[in-house]
């Protein structure tokens, strides 16, 4: 299977609105989370770093071959920062998913700020081991 089965649909976070990707209104100032993509025989797995996102504020959608991941982060109020090395805000990322994924069976879990998304392959896309019988 080629690496392009699941591809990034968001080279630059700030293009999301210009590209008319139906991104959420505040996606222009959303941060692009880092993702790993692993492929096994049975499934693809996406791992993403989204610190500060609770499972309840994570919105994952799959529509017309597009997987969107939007994590909402509540902005802390009345903090008097003395130094800030990173910004705090929502996370947004899109992936284009090819046909070799079963859309009915996408599951996700969130732990310690890391989201894990399982995309299972339909039966036809799984590699098959063919049993070789000894000819009698």
């Amino acid at each position, binding site marked *: 299977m080629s*690496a392009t089965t*699941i591809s*990034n649909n968001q080279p630059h976070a700030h293009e999301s609105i210009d590209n008319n990707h139906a991104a959420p209104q505040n996606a222009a100032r959303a941060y692009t989370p*880092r*993702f*790993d*993509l*692993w*492929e*096994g*025989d049975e499934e693809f797995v996406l*791992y*993403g*770093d*989204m*610190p*500060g*996102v*609770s499972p309840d504020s994570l919105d994952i959608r799959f529509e017309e071959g597009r997987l969107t991941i939007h994590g909402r982060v509540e902005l802390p109020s009345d*903090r*008097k*920062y*003395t*130094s*800030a090395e*990173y910004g705090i805000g929502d996370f947004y990322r899109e992936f284009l998913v090819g046909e070799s994924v079963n859309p009915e069976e996408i599951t996700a879990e969130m*732990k*310690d*700020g*890391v989201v894990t998304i399982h995309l299972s392959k339909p039966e036809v896309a799984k590699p098959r081991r063919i049993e070789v019988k000894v000819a009698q």
Partner: protein
Amino acid sequence: MWEDENHLFVEAELPGLEADKIEVLVQGNQLTLRGKREFQSPSSGTWHRRERSNLQFHRVIELSHDVKQEDLTADYKQGVLVITLPKSEAAKPIRITVNSQ
């Protein structure tokens, strides 16, 4: 890093760590953060995309105030570490009443 009248707060984004793999040390006005994200790579399969680094960090942060050596707390939630450091009495501001004559 931010503060209120009585505390200094230090926050760090550390997604995917075990709380007991994060080491927090305070010595004088130096705060040391040390840790490593352990990730068990599957034995088979293929990585198509590796954007997340093997997170390993060792930071020494100079605190803007002296802090008490007790009542320090470090809470890890949703991949974010928040350390609360009570300011030492000498570092707290003292309010001076203005008398009018």
